[in-house]
């Protein structure tokens, strides 16, 4: 895939110049505050949402946030903030 070939030189580039990897490699940036909030930047939209699980599309796979009473506090093109009591975060990457 194009992304795969790209990452061959992109990764050293990010390492050498100390550039933010999430931008160079187009990765999500996930920030978790305790188990209360999960903040995801650079996402690809919601795949499915229930009170117990939120599945979020990434450029290269998906991220599942599971927990209880999950509420999407805020959502726009680049960011999603999920509130609730978070129990787990799971990656499912196509490339692996």
């Amino acid at each position, binding site marked *: 895939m194009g992304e795969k070939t790209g990452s061959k030189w992109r990764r050293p580039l990010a390492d050498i110049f100390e550039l933010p990897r999430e931008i160079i490699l187009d990765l999500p940036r996930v920030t978790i505050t305790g188990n209360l909030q999960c903040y995801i930047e650079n996402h690809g*939209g*919601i795949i*499915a*949402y229930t009170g117990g699980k939120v599945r979020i599309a990434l450029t290269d796979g998906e991220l599942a946030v599971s927990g209880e009473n*999950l*509420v*999407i*506090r805020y*959502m726009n*093109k680049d960011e999603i903030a999920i509130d609730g009591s978070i129990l787990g975060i799971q990656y499912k990457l196509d490339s692996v």
Partner: protein
Amino acid sequence: MTILKLRYFLTGFLLIRITGAAPEKFFNLAALEGIPLWDIKHGTGKFTFKTDVDSFAGLRHLARRTGCRLHILGKAGLPFLCNRLLRRRGLIFGLIFFILGLYTASSFILFIQITGNEKLDSGYLRELAARAGATPGRLRRNLDIDDVANRMLLAEPRLEWVGLQLVGTKLIIEVREAIDKPAEMDAPADLVAAKDGLVTEVLVFVGEARVQPQETVRRGQLLIEGIIRPDPQYAAEGEEQKSKPVHAQGKVIARVWYEGYGEASLTETVRVRSGRSISRRILCIEGQPVLRVGRDSIPFARYEKVIRSQPVLERIIRVPVEVVTETFYELELQKKEITAEQARKLALARARQLAELQLPADAELIDETVEELPVQKKGLFRARCILETREDIAVSKPKNGGESSFD
């Protein structure tokens, strides 16, 4: 986000329920279109979310494309709140009434508190303040704090200092009483007359009386001499009989007369405002004039100047900023014709006023004579008022020629 929510609160937002096959798709599309969605919650078979009012039209379009149905559950935010509020006329009137009432009530002095007095009675000071112009129920604006303080100081010599402070509707009058000079009871002193009068009673505590009742005395005359002479009857044998100077004490009650003279003519010249006035405004910062608006020269021959200062944003700005308004009222000399009866009354009133001004605060008024003086010039009435009081005229005067202390 909090700031954004505040913004949406100001512009108004909607609580929407969405039902359909793929609400997730709807959310993604909305996010892509840049429509803000927040508080997305999942209930049984339905989702609720919040969005701002302006985006709703766009959302409808998206819902149709994704096969979802939107249902507005609630409207919130300031515009809806205002709408609801505006519909309640009674509430608005009540609010206006309340604010006006509060404003009106707070522009009066409602309470007067007197602090700092030790010997003087609070009730008496209250009365004194009332006479000086500070009464409960008076408009705050009309109260001249300096004037009241000065009047109180003039009216009551036992007050050393008076400070007035307006705190809301409460006027706090803080007084400092004059500390009595420690009576130098040991220093030899005589009692002398403070003013002219006719002695009616002489009461000697210490010393020897030098005046008798029914005697007229002049100011400065010796009344009670501070001296004790040993009685020759009890003198020890061979001992030199020497008189001893003491601090004289006693009361000398005398009738004192105060005279006032007044006159009034049939044509009284009075200065009246003609009705024309000009004013200029000066912006002062920390007492320094900064900006002057208005003309410099005054086109009136005779005028009266009234200065009012209005503090600006007193509680917001630390630096005292005030707008001083100087108003010049043109004055006209007007000859007012009054009747003989009116002129006579005016002369009498003036005479009495002058006499009253001389009265000490604690004098007991026993007689009052108002008499008309013979007319010398045609159209001029003259009157004299004599007030008679009974008062203690004795004041202490140190023997060694020191300063006399008037208490």
